């Protein structure tokens, strides 16, 4: 007999939800939070971040939750608008890149030797050059701005995920249940959608989750060298790179709060992705 064994009874749970329900609710709350930031950021008007030279370099207070910067702009409003923009860029970039990776990975593994050669060569080509170089090239060619930077991000972040998906599809398509499906008269397309795609969800979700912060950081890097968004647009990358100059002057709040918010956003994404993965995994269906 174990003395201190504590058996948790159902009544002791404050909310009698099982783990799946809790995961689902956490994911929904996190998604609402993210959407809220995007919407609020889009609704805030430019007046909220107007220059006010009387209220320069103020430390955080109840008037200015995150303080003000060297031009007297309210950092809270700037941070929210910046996050909104960054989440938007990150989402479009990561979703676009993941789609390209999925399509090319599937095509390489299912459409025969020639397609595989071409796509593998393309993956190697993109992987052999650092992301940032191709990104700058594409953003520059398209004339910078929101469109340029988003297209650049979409077109540069897919190769490693595409390679993972290709390997995974190659493994699944030789599985017995796929061969049986073929003998039961199912078409290639049907098998790809019903048999192979469900197996790719963990790879896609994790690839997407890892890509999202990556995309945001690259966006800020390109913006930093002046090829991305214009400097008066309050993207998180711009705020952070500007703040660096003022850190040594003791104005910690300029970088601290926006950085913390970015971290929280990335964490929220991570939580959603992880929860979704667990919710979709049959072996975890009874947790």
């Amino acid at each position, binding site marked *: 007999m174990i003395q201190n064994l504590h058996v948790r009874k159902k009544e002791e749970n404050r909310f009698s939800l099982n783990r799946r329900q809790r995961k689902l609710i956490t994911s929904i709350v996190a998604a609402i939070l993210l959407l809220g930031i995007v919407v609020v950021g889009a609704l805030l008007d430019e007046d909220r971040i107007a220059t006010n030279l009387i209220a320069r370099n103020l430390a955080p207070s109840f008037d200015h939750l995150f303080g003000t910067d060297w031009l007297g702009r309210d950092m809270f409003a700037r941070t929210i608008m910046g996050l909104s923009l960054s989440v938007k860029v990150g989402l479009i970039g990561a979703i676009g890149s993941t789609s390209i990776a999925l399509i090319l990975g599937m095509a390489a593994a299912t459409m025969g030797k020639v397609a595989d050669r071409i796509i593998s060569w393309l993956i190697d080509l993109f992987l052999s050059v650092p992301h940032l170089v191709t990104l700058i090239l594409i953003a520059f060619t398209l004339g910078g701005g929101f469109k340029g930077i988003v297209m650049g991000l979409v077109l540069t972040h897919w190769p490693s995920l595409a390679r993972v998906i290709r390997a995974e599809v190659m493994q699944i398509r030789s*599985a*017995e*249940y796929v*061969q*049986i*499906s073929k*003998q*039961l*008269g*199912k078409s290639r397309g049907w098998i790809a959608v*019903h*048999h192979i795609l*469900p*197996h790719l969800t963990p790879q896609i979700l994790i690839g997407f989750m890892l890509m999202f912060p990556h995309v945001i950081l690259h966006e800020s890097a390109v913006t930093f060298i002046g090829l991305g968004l214009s400097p008066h647009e309050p993207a998180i990358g711009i705020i952070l790179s500007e703040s660096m100059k003022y850190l040594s002057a003791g104005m910690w709040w300029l970088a601290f709060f926006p950085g913390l918010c970015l971290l929280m956003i990335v964490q929220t994404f991570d939580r959603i992705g992880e929860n979704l993965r667990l919710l979709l995994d*049959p*072996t975890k*269906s*009874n947790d």
Partner: protein
Amino acid sequence: MRLEAKNIGFRYGNGPWLFQHVNLTVEPGEIVGLTGPSGRGKTTLCRILSGYEKALEGNVTIGGLPIASKGVHPVQLVFQHPEKAVNPRWKMGKVLNEGGRPDIELLDLLGIEQEWLTRWPGELSGGELQRFCVARALGAGTRFLIADEMTTMLDAITQAQIWHAVMEIAKKREMGIIVVSHEAKLVQRLCDRVITLTDPN
């Protein structure tokens, strides 16, 4: 509509011939046993007959006509390992209906319970999964069934239940069956005649 294999020969890559000049005829409603030592090509022959592999020599016909490569194959194979033959990310209901919706009578014969249909494959035992594989293979378009060590890893009671169900269906639909097994007693009990694959040399 007899299943006929004429002059079948097969080898993997440039290796030695696994078998050559194999002739096999199965009439509808006939139950044929296929035995032989390990590695003589029983499974390969089954895979050729059911269209998973193409014979390098000879051809397989049904009722004198070659089998179309598209659509439901009239010769269905049931594998030895049901865990591998079922997509782990599908609920059992979807697995069951992949080859067309089987009737309740067949499910009852095989002992498949309605409650299982909403479960994931990982939540059923090997014997339960194998019943699903058999039911899936017994779709409306199936003329011949090949049971490649179908019940080897099951206990005697489950074996008896599955074979009883399959025999009943076969009799009703005039379906030919090829039974591959190492178990001499089982083959003797079930089959009208037995073919033994021997060393090609």
